[in-house]
């Protein structure tokens, strides 16, 4: 079953690889990204960083949705990671088996405002999050498992 669906601009790194995998007892990680599947180097480095004993699969967003919908992933304790809120939305549009979205880390720039220490969103992204909420998908912010869930609701997404 899908144990965690996370947005993290750094994809597979220390926190995600170790703390989260341990906390949710993950035995498989799915990286859903159209960009990464095309990038040999990125795939190679991610394979290096994956924790021992945990399966790592990198697929495009379409292929990821297909795999989830087909039930092939049900037997794993699955951690799904996407790079951006936009990618998360795309995946959520293609499968309804995901009930909750964890916002772990997004980049800051001049056009973003902060929803928390590590989550910075543009106006576009706020709209997308609002759409996600409308799908009855829980949206929560936690960088590390020890943090307490900060639930995102519509009121936080108004301009």
């Amino acid at each position: 079953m899908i144990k965690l669906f996370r947005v993290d601009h750094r994809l597979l790194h220390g926190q995600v690889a170790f703390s989260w995998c341990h906390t949710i007892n993950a035995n498989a990680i799915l990286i859903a990204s159209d960009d990464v599947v095309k990038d040999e180097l990125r795939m190679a480095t991610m394979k290096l960083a994956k924790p021992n004993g945990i399966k790592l699969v990198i697929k495009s967003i379409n292929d990821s949705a297909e795999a989830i919908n087909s039930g092939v992933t049900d037997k794993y304790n699955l951690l799904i990671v996407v790079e951006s809120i936009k990618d998360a939305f795309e995946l959520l549009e293609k499968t309804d088996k995901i009930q909750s979205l964890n916002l772990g880390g997004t980049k800051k720039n001049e056009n973003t405002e902060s929803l928390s220490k590590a989550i910075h969103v543009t106006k576009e992204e706020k709209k997308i999050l609002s759409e996600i909420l409308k799908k009855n998908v829980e949206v929560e912010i936690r960088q590390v498992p020890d943090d307490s869930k900060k639930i995102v609701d519509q009121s936080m997404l108004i301009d």
Partner: protein
Amino acid sequence: MMISDKKYKVTRKELRSVFWRSFTTSHSWNYERQQHIAFCYSMIPVINKLYKNKQDRIEAYKRHLEFYNSQTTLHPFIASITTAMEEENANNPNFDSKSISSMKVALMGPLAGIGDSLIGGTLRIIATGIASGLCATGNIMGPILFLLIYNIPSLILRYLGVFKGYKLGTTFMTQISNSDVMKKVTFATAVIGLMVVGAMVANLVVVSTPITIGIGEGKVKLQDTLNDIFPMLLPLVTTGIIYKLLKKKIKVIYLLIGIIIFGIIFRALGILG
């Protein structure tokens, strides 16, 4: 491939600068872009050598002020691969400079994961474990040994990183990834690391009981009996209980407070002490 008749080239001098400057990785850390200032700082000598045009330099400085975070020991490695790419960029007008940024992104996350667990984690554990015996007796060699055991391998990795990264470039990463090397290294360090932690549990976790059983001549100290059956049983059991609680996702801060309260109560009850 590095061709020796390139117009703009980086020399050992710049690589040495990168080596020294990359010690400052976590200086100026911030939530926004984390180690970015330090990374740029470490690239400045390279940028200045390769680009004479002010506009090119400006672009390069900005490029390296983007978000950056990785394990500090691997900073020289990432910086030197970046250097190789910047060199390519300076000489080849058709080179897409965006690929430099995406290469950094590709490397920094996974290398941080590996670095944090192997160096910040296992190596540090081993150094602490070995030093602990000497420290416990107040011997100054303890802390000195700690620093040596941690830093000698660390410095070697930094040094190799800055020179290998530049020579081997990104193909090195793909080669390593496709080979068995990482698996073997992870396995070996896990074995050593766990054995060290296991030994430390036996040596450094102090849990014993003052309980005596029986009266008069037949009095027996429970702790002595335990020691005869299974030395260090209590430390092992205690660690095991805490480990199980952690797996149940009890937060670290609660466990901390819990242990303190537990200590006070059980000592007062005469069960531990």
